[in-house]
């Protein structure tokens, strides 16, 4: 496990909504349901300029304090764990954070 703070950027159009393989039985379609994502870079393959803009945008988000995906993982862990178990089957590790109902 990585120590916090940590950030996730979805690369390409396949994590966004499935991309070219939207009807495949072996790929997951929306990465946002399984781990919290801070930014997306579209394209198949993305251009080099798009990658640079995406990564530097992540820097400005971190400076402003708006890239808080890791905090959301801790708060809404029950939602993420249910989705992970639905797709991957019984997980081999215990819940990482205490499973409590999220207050909204």
């Amino acid at each position, binding site marked *: 496990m990585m120590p916090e703070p940590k950030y996730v950027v979805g690369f390409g159009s396949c994590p966004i909504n499935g991309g*070219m*393989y939207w*009807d*495949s*039985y*072996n*790929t997951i379609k929306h990465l946002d349901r399984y781990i919290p994502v801070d930014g997306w870079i579209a394209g*198949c*393959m993305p*251009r080099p300029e798009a990658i640079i803009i995406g990564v530097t945008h992540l820097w400005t988000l971190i400076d402003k304090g708006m890239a808080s995906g890791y905090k959301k993982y801790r708060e809404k862990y029950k939602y993420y764990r249910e989705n992970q178990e639905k797709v991957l089957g019984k997980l081999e590790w215990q819940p990482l954070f205490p499973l409590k109902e999220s207050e909204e």
Partner: protein
Amino acid sequence: MIEERELELFYGPQHLGMVGNFSITLKVEGDTIVEAIANPGYLHRGFEKLMEYRNWIQNFPLVCRINVIEPDSMEMVYAMAVEKLAGIEVPERGNYIRTIFLELSRIASHLFGAWAYVNMLGFDTAAQWAMYHRDLILDLFEELTGGRVYHIYIQPGGVRRDFPKGFKDKIVKTLHSIGGCIPDYDATFFNNSLFYKRANGIGKINLETAKKLGAVGQVLRATGMEYDIRKIEPYAAYDKVDFNVPTRKKGDAYSRIWIVRDEMIESVHMIFKLLEQMPKGDVWNRTPNPFKWQIPERDVYVRVESSRGELGVYLVSNGENKPYRVHFRTPSYTHGLVILEKLLKGANISDVGNIMISLYVIAPEIDR
């Protein structure tokens, strides 16, 4: 007591010694490997099932993405199979353009393979030069087709559009700048004694074993056999141009990487000769409306020479406007599964990445 000396090691999917996501489970005693079990399947997207739901022409964007490094040979073999099923001819200028396009793609793929191997051994400078030269070729592709990596340029009946104005001079200029750097590559990496000491005698295979296990491509040419589909069953314009097929005799990792360098130089000379001989004319023979194009019931097996070996497709049609069954025979399937497990027995742990990348394997091609 003897069972307690064995350790099970997981050589995982994120490693500098792998190209793509592919893992091996190693059973190790001390420093030597006793048994290796390959675990492919991280990149299995089920292409052959997805292709049964789309038209003949709608399958081209899917076929590209099977091999990420060299998508053009996949397009070429699928287009040739559809042409054989439907009985379509390609005009002569179309054949010449297809050949130039495939050879440029071969140079780009060899530069990527050189980056992977050279970087694994630790020579970062020469690896970054290879990536820079590959970027110059990708700029050429972008001007011709609109995309840097995935092109969708070859279609049944020919190619999509002709060369734009001034494109010939740009190809010549780019190839001169790549070819002029070959002495630098030689001085930095290929003639370096460290490369010789680390790669000589590693992953050795002899001709009889290679033929028994079904090896093709560089693995077979390094053992002394001049096996190249471009000479055996010529397709496109390969019978109109003169070229050599480089071979070596020893069959180890050192010979395989030297063959990669020699093939790049051969491709550069081939493109110069083809550009002089190119005739004028059409580039595409018209095919029917893709939504209503029905091909009679037949099955066919077609093969081409990709940069890694013999690439083949078995295509079955049922009389509809969609394929009934597609099955790709990729060169990385035999090299990455059958030959890898054989070669890793008795090898040192520190040589696993060396053997794996010198067999010139790409993980997306194994899983499809």
